[in-house]
């Protein structure tokens, strides 16, 4: 009896916290939203139309029904409004607070600093290998985000996730191909450069007749007399560069799983 009462109180507390957190975020963003009617697509401003949101929600719902994986999107004005110090921490927090489950692929987008994070929980890593997410999903999503196509970004996440899930279901989870255009270009470039250096050295060996440009071999020993030796400080300049967090994988923000985050 006591145990049942304790469970009931705990559940009420969690629901209260989640509602409070999301209401706070929505209030901070200056707009109320009917978040509680959506399980997979969240926003604290009107980034997506009702029709778009319904379509995305329906698709994620179908994915969950078929594969038991949650494919979710959260679009917010600023992750800092949710008391998070980074977009990665925001993703981890949201997965917990919104109780999205253990097998989650989440796209978080923060409009204020134009940052994004594709968060794959530990439970989902079986179907979503980190390097494959970076190769197949991230680039496609970033190109949509750069065009301010939020709906396109969410659609891309869902479509690509379905590909991943189908492959996983078939027993061959998607993996980053070993041969990529970037790697091939690097191999070709380095090879040609190496060949050029080696051949230049060999060719230089064939030429030994050259004009002498200095008389360093004929200096009278100890004859160099340095009469002025002045090093005068004039001024200091300072440059600042924002350290960009480019696509990075691995555990971040205090939760398990992998993140592919950056700015668009």
């Amino acid at each position, binding site marked *: 009896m006591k145990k049942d009462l304790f469970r009931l109180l705990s559940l009420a507390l969690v629901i209260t916290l989640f509602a409070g957190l999301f209401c706070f975020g929505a209030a901070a963003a200056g707009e109320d939203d009917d978040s509680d009617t959506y399980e997979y697509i969240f926003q604290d401003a009107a980034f997506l139309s009702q029709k778009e949101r319904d379509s995305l929600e329906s698709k994620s719902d179908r994915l969950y029904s078929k594969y038991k994986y949650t494919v979710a999107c959260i679009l917010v004005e600023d992750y800092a409004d949710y008391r998070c110090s980074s977009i990665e921490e925001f993703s981890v927090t949201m997965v917990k607070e919104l109780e999205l489950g253990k097998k989650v692929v989440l796209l978080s987008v923060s409009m204020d600093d134009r940052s994004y994070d594709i968060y794959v929980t530990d439970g989902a890593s079986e179907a979503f290998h980190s390097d494959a997410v970076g190769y197949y999903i991230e680039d496609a999503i970033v190109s949509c985000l750069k065009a301010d196509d939020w709906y396109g970004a969410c659609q891309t996440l869902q479509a690509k996730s379905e590909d991943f899930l189908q492959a996983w279901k078939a027993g061959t989870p998607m993996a980053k191909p070993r041969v990529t255009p970037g790697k091939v270009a690097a191999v070709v470039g380095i090879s040609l450069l190496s060949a050029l250096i080696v051949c230049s050295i060999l060719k230089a060996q064939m030429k030994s007749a050259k004009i002498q440009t200095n008389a360093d071999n004929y*200096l*009278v020993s100890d004859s160099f*007399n340095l009469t002025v030796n002045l090093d005068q400080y004039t001024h200091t300049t300072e440059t600042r560069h924002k350290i960009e967090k480019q696509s990075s994988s691995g555990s971040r923000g205090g939760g398990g799983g992998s993140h592919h985050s950056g700015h668009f």
Partner: protein
Amino acid sequence: MGANATNYQCPACTGPLHFDGTTGKLVCDYCDSSFSVEEIEALYAGQEQQSAAAAMQAEDEAAENGAYEEYPEPESMDVRVYSCPTCGAELIADETTIASSCPYCGNPNVTPGPFIHARKPDYVIPFKCTREQAIAALKNHYKGKRLLPNTFADNNHIEEIKGVYVPFWLYGGTADGDIAYHTTRTHTHRQGDWEITRTEHYRVLRSGSVAFEMVPVDGSKKMPDDHMDAIEPFDYSDLKPFSTAYLPGYLADKYDEDEDQCAERAENRFAESIEHCLRNTVKGYGTVSEVSKELHTHRRKAAYALMPVWMLSTSWNGKQFLFAMNGQTGKLIGDLPVDKKKYWTWFGSVAAGVAALLSIVMFVL
């Protein structure tokens, strides 16, 4: 009538003497007697003066009689005819040549005539390397040259090999310079999400002077400057006061670019070196760029020296290749032809090898 040429004859058998670089003595071609330079100099001191006087007289007579052989323009400009005192052959020599070997009897001849009207060399470095060593050095020069055409070493023929005393001007002097540099030191540190780079700027001034001695510049237009520069350095510890006794068996060219004409090359080298000296004192900076410079050179009167050089001329596929060997140190230089097929084979092989290695590392492992 050709001008008379004098040679050193063996005091024992009157055969011709030649200077032997390995022993540093004059050796008789016939009886193998050898004599030191000093001994022959003493013996011929009086004879050279007489010979020079006779040569001048003969020149005057030849000019009066129009006896010099005339060649069609432009060849006639640069040649003169001498007769070999041993076999009577007429020798055609460059007008700036002051010693030569007879191509018919091999008799080493010395013609003191031009010395009378031109500046006499102050120094000479005698030959140490022999003709055979020069040929061996040339063969050795081909080794390890992976782009050398296969047929080059086998099919090219040494068309001419001659030991030449090349006229060099040895310049001494000083150079001074004032150079201003702009230098920077950079420190980078991280502050939150920001990378902050602080660059300290400095104005660096350097002034100084340095002295040079015996910077060699060849005074012969016939000798390619790049070849003569590349066979440096000569070991000046072998520098001897000039004597014609070192010349038999070798060609000896008189300078055809005088001290002033060659001075620019020496002064440019002085200036480059003072720049190096001053630049080497600027240390501890990330970047150094020159803002302004003022360089001055001051040269003293140059010494005139004859330096030993083996010149080897070869032909291959109808092209001429010239090699020069320092007759004292044995350093041989000369440009070699590049086999384009080999070049591209090497290029392809290296590229393919590196690509294969990288592919294994990046795509397989």
